């Protein structure tokens, strides 16, 4: 270990030591070691109407590297999207998730692809954690054919049904009843799986959320409502929008858990706990205490309603990627250089995907009229010029 560190830092002795070093540094970041490692969550859980899960979380080297890689990838992807938006290659709305990666990654680690996830418009990273590719993300953001919705959805409408990811919704709060509906269908179909319906602190005050929670509790649906509390609903701080910003308690009769959303292991532990609970006892609320570095969207600088000190403070103290980096280093699972190499690889992956997406064509004009219906019945539809632009719906 020490030897390889020496080798990487000193270039003069590099040639001499290279063969030896490469042999040693062939012990690349251990990505397959599954020896259990126990980590403690950053803070204990707080609960409402239920027990708290243990702060000790079982993991292993493989999972640590997966977390690091996935979160670094998401981070890089969102920052690249920022640049693409400023270059006007992405149009319309673009809501970035950087800072919140631990929620997507921790949740995915606790569940299977049989479980459903539905979220709002800040969906790029959740889509990736459900198995979406970088090309699908960038192509969709740029409105190209290779996009996950073939360019017809845009940033807010990513879907991946084969991994039970149901979007991608632009209307604040609508995804919560939809998510409870997914849970209903899972119970109806006897699938023994759960649905995670994600929403923000802004959406947490929506009436339809309480309507859906009421029905979910009455009918014992396996629904887990996950409030990604990044403390700002667009430009409105939580204390200005909610009389009670203790979102994990807002379920009243439904139990809730408050979780450090910047700690991927806390998220994983909470989601495991919630899944077990929901399958037996019906709905539960998870409040993820998280933070977004970007503004609400690309049109929002994000600094008019919060201080730069606050943003840099969170980045220094609580950054989810840094937490995993420190864990990997403290457990001696890799060197700093190796982790940096992974990040370099990721950067290249992202750049390659963007280059590929840029080459990808826009949809054919005929796509204007496809998928209006699943079963078009041979009905006629019209474009803006009703005489010239007509189509039969397939």
């Amino acid at each position, binding site marked *: 270990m020490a030897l390889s560190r020496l080798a990487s830092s000193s270039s003069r002795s590099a040639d001499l030591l290279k063969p030896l070093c490469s042999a040693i540094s062939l012990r690349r970041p251990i990505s397959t070691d599954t020896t259990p490692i126990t980590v403690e969550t950053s803070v204990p859980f707080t609960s409402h109407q239920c027990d708290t899960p243990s702060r000790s979380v079982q993991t292993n080297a493989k999972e640590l590297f997966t977390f690091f890689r996935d979160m670094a990838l998401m981070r890089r992807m969102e920052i690249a999207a920022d640049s693409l938006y400023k270059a006007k290659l992405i149009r319309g709305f673009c809501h970035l998730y950087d800072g919140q990666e631990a929620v997507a990654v921790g949740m995915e680690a606790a569940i299977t692809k049989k479980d*459903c996830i*539905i979220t709002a418009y800040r969906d790029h990273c959740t889509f990736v954690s459900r198995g979406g590719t970088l090309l699908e993300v960038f192509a969709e953001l740029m409105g190209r054919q290779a996009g996950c*919705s*073939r*360019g*017809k*959805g845009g940033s807010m*409408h990513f*879907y*991946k*049904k084969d991994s039970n990811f*149901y*979007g*991608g*919704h*632009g*209307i604040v709060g*609508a995804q*919560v*009843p*939809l*998510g*409870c*509906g*997914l*849970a*209903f*269908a*899972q119970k*109806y*179909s006897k699938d023994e799986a759960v649905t995670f319906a994600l929403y923000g602190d802004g959406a947490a005050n929506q*009436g*339809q959320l*309480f*309507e*859906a929670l*009421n*029905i*979910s509790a*009455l*009918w014992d649906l396996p629904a887990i409502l996950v409030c990604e509390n990044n403390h700002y609903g667009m430009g409105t701080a939580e204390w200005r929008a909610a009389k009670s910003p203790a979102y994990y308690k807002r379920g009243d009769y439904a139990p809730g858990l408050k979780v450090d959303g910047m700690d991927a292991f806390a998220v994983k532990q909470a989601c495991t706990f919630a899944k077990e609970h929901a399958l037996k006892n019906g709905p539960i609320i998870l409040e993820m205490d998280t933070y977004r570095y970007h503004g609400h969207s690309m049109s929002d600088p994000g600094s008019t309603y919060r201080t730069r000190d606050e943003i840099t403070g969170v980045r220094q103290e609580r950054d989810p990627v840094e937490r995993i980096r420190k864990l990997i280093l403290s457990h001696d699972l890799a060197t700093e250089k190796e982790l940096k190499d992974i990040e370099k690889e990721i950067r290249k992956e992202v750049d390659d995907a963007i280059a590929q997406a840029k080459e990808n064509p826009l949809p054919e004009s005929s796509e204007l009229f*496809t*998928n*209006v*219906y*699943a*079963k078009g*019945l041979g*009905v*006629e*539809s019209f474009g803006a010029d*009703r*005489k010239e632009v007509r189509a039969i719906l397939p």
Partner: protein
Amino acid sequence: MLGIVRQKMLEQSLKKIRPAVSVLRSYSSAAKQMTVREALNSALDEEMSADSKVFLMGEEVGEYQGAYKITKGLLDKYGPERVLDTPITEAGFTGIAVGAAYYGVKPVVEFMTFNFSMQAIDHIINSAAKTNYMSSGRISVPIVFRGPNGAAAGVGAQHSQCYAAWYASCPGLKVLAPYSSEDARGLLKAGIRDPDPVVFLENELLYGESFPVSDEVLDSSFCLPIGKAKIERKGKDVTIAAYSKMVGYALKAAETLEKDGIDAEVINLRSIRPLDRSTINASVRKTNRLVTVEEAFPQHGVGAEICASIVEESFAYLDAPVERIAGADVPMPYAANLERMAVPQVIYHFSLFSYNYQYIYTHICIYMHANTHNFIHL
């Protein structure tokens, strides 16, 4: 401009030898009578029996047997897992139903009336109608929203609106409006089997009306095509296009017109979206005159759309401007006399005049009470 040559004398004598067959319903093997309520109930029953993914959801659909008894007996037959009573929270339960449809099961959501669907309209439009398109076909939404639509009797402004035009303006939805029991059965079964979101607009005052139904209609595989209108009564002098309860009124008006020598063709739209433009246009090209009838508010309505379609496709065939008969442009009043004035009625008188050199014009007025007097000019 073609006129119609008519001689009242000739007409009278012709009437004596014309076969006295009711022009109203011409089902050839009409044997059984069925109310619209029974038709809807049997359609739901059969579709639930045929496909275990179909389930019902709505206020009072289960233990109460349905606010209008449409779902009577279904809770007993299929159990509480498939017939679900919801709290009075339209936004919540409609969202839940749409989410279930995303997953692949097939909800049939009842709105006690479509007035309450406004509380859930975001889910109908943004969550249901647009999703297949936004996901480029990955996620389809096989859901039916059904319930009584339009005016009832004495229920006031908040309980009387017709939503056909609102829903039919949205791409991605299919909007159906049955009239008879045959329509109710065939269209509901088709809607439940359809993979797209369907808005099924019933009419409370039609629930108790009986219609003859053939054996074909009673068969459990019976389905009507979505997007096809029905010519309820063939004619050649004027086309009357209507949907739901107004089809009955149009048929009554046609009977009356027949006595006065005017042969009206009555089209039962059945499908508001997709609208059967080709049937309506073909009819107008034959008759050269069109009257649209609806109970809804007139502005931006179904009649306006049909008129636009005729102007676009069959302008040269029109002998007279299109007449639109609709509800009054006011919120529905409660007082009985005002309520009568707020929806179309069938009242008639006629007068005969104007002899021209080449042809005779017969001026017939069908006096339909609305905010203005509406006439069919022939």
